[in-house]
């Protein structure tokens, strides 16, 4: 109990509150800019958190992520340019409302749905993470090894249309993550005699390069053909009924909102699915169950409530596998895992045992971030709408230069800037060739832990090949990992066969004129 009170008191210290507030505000502002999302914002701002206490740093990054998730709705509603896939469903009903002059009302619905979804999800996280972590403490190295193997196979399917390319990307990420000092012999491995690689590649330059720099390279490519970007046509109506959202109207959508939150929590808690899946699933369910199906896509508030409550509830629930098992369920959680590691903590069940006060402080920050999002969003809505109008000619050089200096800031090393540029270049090719940079990054982050678990298994079992057979949970998890790979391959094989059959028909039709 003392720990809980101390942790909560930490979360309301002036420094924590200030950085949390700044994090949420900056997150909304950044998220509102098309093309910049939560994980990218975390990658850009992680270097700054080097100079903060762990609680302030994690609180700041969590606030940033929560803010960015709502911010994504701003460009989706005003420009129909969601920038991130999870905000796409919001734009389907948000933009038609903007065209009707009801953009502010749509944004208010998005805000309240985001806050509600996020708050419910945070409460679920608080209630179930610690008890689950206590159970997870019984897991030994074999179970951890099997669990990471499972996570890697599940995550290999994110961000690519091919599981094969996803596994290649995860393998490459693991390989890059193993560069540095080998844990058993303490000798350099795969450093190619470059002394700067002795301590391995830092997460910051790799993440900034892959997430932010490569994204800007792609956006600049698209921008070059378009001119000075798209500008919103948001002319807000001055009529109160078009601007404000009456409580009665909000409560009309409460069922959709609660359903969306539950979908978001379920999807977020499962590694690998992510916010876009939650958002689309929730929208689909809302449409199927609505009495006004025909109005969906034409400016229905219910559609916004469904999409935003689901995608925002993923933010907190994706922390469940991270806190309970040390497995990041999505990219934002992976970036937060990196932030934990930078501050000397290993996410997982031991966090609750070794850093209980900090964990309760983080819980406090998570709840406060929801409240700050409500307040900041409520009063700064019109200001944040201006972010979508920042000229690309000014925005891109700022982001690019921030990437470069952000990479430098971590270790005050120009070598890291070089690493960032290399991974920016690699990230550009990975995106263009459809190799999952998400799988790469998660493989990179999990590689040392995976190897550590394997080493422990081998040492404890004294090279007993059948060690796994004595650990039913580990065996079950490994079997599940193989099942996931097999099932994904089978599904893509079936889909491929269907598409090929369609291609044959199309070709024959073309031949016959």
């Amino acid at each position, binding site marked *: 109990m003392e720990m809980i009170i101390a942790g909560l008191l930490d979360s309301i210290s002036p420094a924590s509150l200030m950085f949390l507030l700044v994090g949420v505000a900056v997150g909304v502002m950044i998220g509102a800019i098309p093309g910049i999302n939560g994980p990218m914002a975390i990658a850009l701002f992680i270097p700054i958190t080097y100079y903060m206490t762990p609680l302030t740093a994690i609180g700041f990054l969590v606030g940033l992520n929560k803010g960015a998730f709502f911010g994504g709705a701003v460009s989706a509603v005003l420009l129909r340019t969601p920038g991130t896939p999870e905000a796409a469903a919001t734009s389907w009903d948000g933009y038609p409302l903007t065209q009707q002059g009801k953009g502010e009302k749509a944004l208010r619905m998005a805000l309240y749905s985001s806050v509600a979804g996020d708050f419910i999800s945070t409460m679920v996280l608080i209630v179930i993470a610690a008890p689950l972590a206590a159970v997870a403490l019984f897991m030994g190295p074999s179970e951890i090894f099997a669990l990471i193997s499972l996570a890697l196979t599940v995550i290999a399917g994110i961000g690519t249309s091919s599981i094969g390319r996803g596994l290649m990307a995860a393998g490459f990420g693991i390989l890059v993550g193993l560069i540095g000092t080998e844990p058993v012999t303490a000798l350099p491995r795969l450093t190619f005699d470059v002394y700067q690689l002795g301590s391995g590649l830092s997460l910051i330059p790799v993440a900034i390069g892959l997430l932010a720099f490569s994204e800007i390279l792609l956006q600049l490519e698209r921008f070059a053909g378009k001119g000075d970007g798209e500008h919103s046509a948001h002319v807000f109506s001055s009529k109160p009924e078009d601007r404000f959202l009456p409580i009665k109207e909000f409560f009309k959508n409460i069922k959709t909102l609660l359903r969306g939150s539950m979908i978001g929590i379920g999807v977020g808690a499962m590694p690998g699915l992510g916010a876009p899946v939650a958002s689309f699933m929730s929208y689909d369910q809302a449409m199927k169950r609505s009495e006004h199906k025909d109005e969906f896509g034409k400016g229905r508030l219910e559609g916004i409530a469904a999409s935003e409550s689901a995608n925002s509830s993923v933010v907190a629930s994706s922390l469940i596998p991270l806190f309970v098992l040390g497995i990041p369920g999505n990219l934002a959680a992976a970036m937060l895992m990196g932030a934990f590691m930078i501050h000397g903590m290993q996410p997982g069940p031991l966090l609750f045992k070794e850093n209980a006060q900090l964990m309760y402080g983080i819980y406090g920050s998570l709840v406060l971030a929801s409240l700050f999002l409500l307040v900041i969003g409520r009063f700064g809505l019109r200001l944040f709408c201006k972010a979508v109008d920042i000229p690309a000619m000014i925005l891109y050089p700022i982001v690019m*230069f921030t990437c470069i200096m952000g990479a430098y800031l971590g270790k005050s090393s120009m070598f890291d800037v070089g690493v960032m540029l290399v991974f920016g270049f690699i990230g550009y090719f990975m995106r263009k060739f459809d190799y999952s940079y998400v799988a790469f990054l998660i*493989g990179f982050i999990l590689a040392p832990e995976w190897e550590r678990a394997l080493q422990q298994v081998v040492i404890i079992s004294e090279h007993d090949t059948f060690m796994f057979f004595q650990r039913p949970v580990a065996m079950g998890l490994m079997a599940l990992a193989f099942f996931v790979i097999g099932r994904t391959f089978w599904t893509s094989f079936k889909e491929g066969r269907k598409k090929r059959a369609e291609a044959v028909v199309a070709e024959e039709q073309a031949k016959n004129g």
Partner: protein
Amino acid sequence: MQVTRIKRDSIAYLLIVGFCILMLAWAIPIYTPAYPGYGASAALVPIVAVSVMLFMACLSLMFIGVSSYLKKPMPVEEREFPEDLEGGGGFTQVGRINLPHLARIMIPCVLLVVAIEYIGYVLASFAFLMILQYAIGSRKWLQSIVVSIILTAVLYIVMRYGFGVPVPGPQIFE
């Protein structure tokens, strides 16, 4: 002649196969510590990772080869680039590589990394930002100068006085 997507993917798989063979035959044996006699070998996990990559690349190549040999038509999404399809690529970022664009952005970045060590942060950053803005199409000189000066100054102040981190390269204001 423009390369089709399937050809480009095949070249990428071949390059990955080559990379994996190089890693397995040369890099891993040479740059991995010898087995100390306990635990797992330091080369085990790198070999597993590279083997997964190699297996997947070979499988993909084999699949393309068999389809081509049997003259089975490939689905249009696998054959063509998303930008060439009707309706574009949606959220996908898959597409053709634009080398001139890459060079236009990457060369100033590389030059910045080199120049900053010689001429210092302030001059190198200012020049970099001017060149970058020109490279992305800005021709408003006054705006470019103002953005470059403000951004260079803000990050200098944030790093030097906010975080107490020395800016890279020679310190001209010290």
